């Protein structure tokens, strides 16, 4: 397993390099002059000021040199200063990551906790009507625009019915992490994000379960006298977990992509919302840092998923 992990880590390096190149190019493509942006708050700017800042930022160097300077800075964890907040970009991002992580981890837990039992129930039902229903249901989960679902949630369940808070991580004045208040505030964003995963799992599980149940080794287990639940639990679920783990990939990608909008809709102070606000106010250091760090997290989570995959299905390691 160790060798597998090491190999995958090494494979991730060129990818990370690609991310750095892309991020760098995009920011340099901006029609706004970074010097202009940094001096935007100043009402008296002389051309000496501009030249001085240009030299200080190294913008008079050729592009490849600028790129390597930037990478060198990143290696020292210097992601630059936020133009809007006047604080290190890295600090801002690190503050927000735990907030976003809460939603995605909770979503993962909820997806499995709700989806797997639903899947088992679905698996035990045969019949054409159920076939159709489960098929449509699973696809419907992916077809709903998440942000729209979030809006409807806030409009109906929060504002009109007052069953849920309208957003934020805690009620005002409450400052706890692992508590009921936080749980209640998490429900909205987590439910909206998990819908796709929850809808999909029953179908995947059902297919797997149906396939596995007819296998020889299950028949052998049954003939040995093991009870049906035991058979299902031990043999079936282990194999059925493979696609469940695959769907983790879906969820993680959804987390990173969808978090931007969900965090706005639910007033959640997370990384997605920070990136959005930074992009809108042209705070490029923060946007760059956010893209780079999100990519690192995404690469790491793909790696974790592959490890989980390999653990569940040893055949994968050989590939």
């Amino acid at each position, binding site marked *: 397993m160790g060798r597998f992990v090491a190999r995958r880590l090494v494979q991730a390096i*060129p*990818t*990370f390099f*690609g*991310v750095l190149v*892309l*991020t760098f190019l*995009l*920011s340099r*493509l*901006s*029609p706004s002059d970074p010097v202009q942006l940094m001096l935007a708050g100043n009402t008296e700017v002389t051309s000496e000021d501009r030249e001085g800042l240009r030299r200080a930022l190294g913008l008079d160097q050729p592009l490849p040199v600028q790129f390597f300077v930037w990478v060198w800075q990143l290696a020292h964890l210097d992601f630059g200063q936020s133009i809007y907040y006047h604080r290190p970009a890295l600090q801002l991002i690190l503050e927000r990551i735990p907030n976003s992580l809460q939603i995605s981890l909770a979503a993962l837990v909820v997806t499995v906790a709700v989806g797997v039992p639903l899947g088992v129930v679905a698996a035990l039902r045969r019949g054409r009507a159920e076939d*159709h229903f489960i*098929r*449509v249901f699973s*696809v*419907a989960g*992916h*077809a*709903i*625009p*998440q*942000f*729209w679902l979030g*809006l*409807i949630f*806030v*409009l109906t369940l929060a*504002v009109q019915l007052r069953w849920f808070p309208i957003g934020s991580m805690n009620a005002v004045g409450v400052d706890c992490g692992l508590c009921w208040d936080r749980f209640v505030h998490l429900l909205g964003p987590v439910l909206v994000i998990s819908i796709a995963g929850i809808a*999909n799992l029953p179908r*995947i599980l059902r*297919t*797997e379960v149906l396939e596995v149940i007819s296998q020889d080794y299950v028949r052998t287990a049954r003939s040995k006298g093991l009870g049906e639940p035991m058979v299902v639990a031990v043999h079936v679920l282990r194999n059925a977990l493979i*696609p469940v783990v695959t769907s983790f990939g*879906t969820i993680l*990608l*959804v987390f*990173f*992509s*969808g978090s*931007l*909008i969900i965090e*706005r809709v639910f007033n959640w102070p997370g990384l997605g919302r920070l*990136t*959005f606000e930074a*992009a*809108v106010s*042209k705070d490029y250091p923060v*946007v760059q840092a*956010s*893209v780079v760090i*999100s*990519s690192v997290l*995404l*690469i790491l989570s*793909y790696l974790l998923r592959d490890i989980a995959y390999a653990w569940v299905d040893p055949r994968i390691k050989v590939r």
Partner: protein
Amino acid sequence: MATDATARELRVRATEPRRASAGLWSDAVWRIRHDTTTMVALTILLLLVLLALGADALATGFFHRSFAQQDILSSYEKPSFDEPWRWLGTDELGRSQVVRLLYGGRVSLFIGAFGAFTAFVIGLAAGITAGYYRGPWDDLVVWVVTTLNSIPILYLLLIIGVLWRLEPLPFAILLGGLGWLGICNFARGQTIALREREYVLAARTVGCSAARLMARHIAPNILPLMIVLAMIEVGQLILLESAISFIGFGIQPPTPSWGNMLTNASQYLGKAPYLIYPPGIAVFITVLCLYLIGDGLRDALDPRLRGSIGVRR
């Protein structure tokens, strides 16, 4: 006696599902025709496409309103049956929501379709060539694919949307330029598997050129499943476009798209809640139909593949 047996045989054969393959496509078509869910989805989608294509004709002939036509004195009106253009109500500038929904559909469907087409072309070309030639080209393609896969796509679109304001056509190409990754991976995987098959090796020994090989022997074999992926891609791009337009970095008003109609609607949740349902439901139904058709197509082409390709993101 012989006729009796033959008749019985014919009767039996008639009731058996056709097993003997009359060709991949006719088999698939047969299966689809007998799959109610897919047929229903297909019909609905066709209806939506027709409505969207006919938006101009309907706007002038039936509704007598254009999508940008403002009538501020009739703003914030609830849906009513008085006149066709009021069926879904009006927004803050008195524009007909039902007409905007049609035009928005045209824009969104166009972006989804054209974007998927672009993604299809790029993904197919990159995937097949990468899988066939292997070597440095393959490495390059794989590198680009994994890199792009590692950046959350909304962030990329956000940055680009902040820098440039895009019209529907360039925007569709942009989406296509970011959405070809899954198609490429699949095409590449299939190509790698296929190039070792006997008929491909045979064609090579006979002296087939690489281009001819890829075009005549490999592509047709992976095409059917690629089309499934393309259908699903259309759905994903429609969702993506509506999301990025919703936060204001996609299609800019006054050009309507289902996404930017929702931006407006979200500000009027309290005052005009009826504004928020039509565009969202429209997106949902369109994407649902696309996914179901893609699903059904895949099942029809090869039921064994159930679960291996499908809705990923």
